[in-house]
């Protein structure tokens, strides 16, 4: 998936800051974000910080987007709950779907990062959609921003393939 398409759509939606932690799938996305002079990228040491910083940015009048892997979301559960959710932040999250291919029928071994992922999102009442190809970028990211704005709560887009 072309990273520039995601960057362009995030900018079109008015995002000011990216807060997150790179993973393999989002490596090219972060490189594209760092290259972009219009976006302020804050990298964190652990994913829970991303939700705290993003919440502070939003209350201060900015429009952050969080970019982390599914494993990081698990680690950040309390920060997501207590900060972004409890403080009513319309926060779009781009979440790397580690192990997505391992869920395919016949795959030799399921990655629990993947098998735990969507059930967790459902349990936490996080609306989400899957990004599987370039043609879905505009529609899915736009839908996440509209959902977040309408509910004043976070919404997620799941990155199922590596960015290039």
């Amino acid at each position: 998936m072309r990273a520039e398409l995601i960057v362009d759509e995030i900018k079109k939606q008015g995002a000011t800051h990216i807060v997150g932690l790179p993973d393999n799938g989002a490596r090219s996305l972060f490189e594209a974000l760092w290259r972009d002079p219009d976006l302020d990228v804050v990298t964190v040491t652990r994913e829970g910080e991303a939700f705290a910083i993003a919440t502070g940015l939003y209350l201060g009048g900015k429009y952050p987007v969080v970019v982390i892997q599914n494993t990081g979301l698990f680690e950040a559960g309390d920060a997501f709950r207590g900060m972004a959710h409890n403080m009513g932040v319309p926060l779009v999250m781009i979440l790397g779907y580690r192990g997505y291919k391992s869920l395919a029928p016949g795959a030799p071994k399921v990655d629990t990062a993947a098998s735990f992922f969507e059930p967790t999102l459902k349990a936490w009442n996080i609306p989400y959609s899957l990004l599987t190809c370039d043609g879905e970028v505009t529609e899915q990211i736009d839908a996440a921003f509209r959902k977040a704005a309408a509910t004043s709560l976070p919404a997620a887009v799941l990155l199922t393939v590596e960015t290039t």
Partner: protein
Amino acid sequence: MLDKYTCLEKLAAHRTDEVVISSMGVATPWEKLSDGPFDLAHVDTAMGHVADFAYGLALAQPERRVIAFCGDGSTLMCLGSLVTIAQRPTGNLTLVITENGTYEVTGNQPVPGAGEVDFAAIARGAGLREVYTIEDETDFDAKLPLHFQLPGPAVFVWKIARAEEPVPKPNRPILERARRLKSALAGVAP
């Protein structure tokens, strides 16, 4: 050893338009001193995430100082945030680490490393440069203006005496507190 109530009173008397984020053992006494739109009790949120939350606010509001109170137990929960703050410093952030060696609001159980951990050394090791430990009231009085003046991120470690604060119960639910602060920072009515 500092008396936190005295220190908070002096800080409140000095404070003008700064955002103040309180938490845990400081939340209730601060709310008694100040409960305005630029105050936010970081309670019913996420343990340990005061410094990074305040950092986000400070990044968003570079013209306004943000003062955040982090307990020693809370600070230990998210030490990496000091590194995050140091890598992209913002000049308007003041962190106060209130060190009493206990989880005060849950009954003063000792925090890991109580009395042994050097928070100032950790902050410096994370890359922060303006770091001060304050142990007595004379030194506190001398350094009080620095809390408002130093180019940040500034860290003050207050060595405070043990006290008996109950679990804080702020005057408003967290969503209302958050919206009130956001409105105040935007200059609009909540």
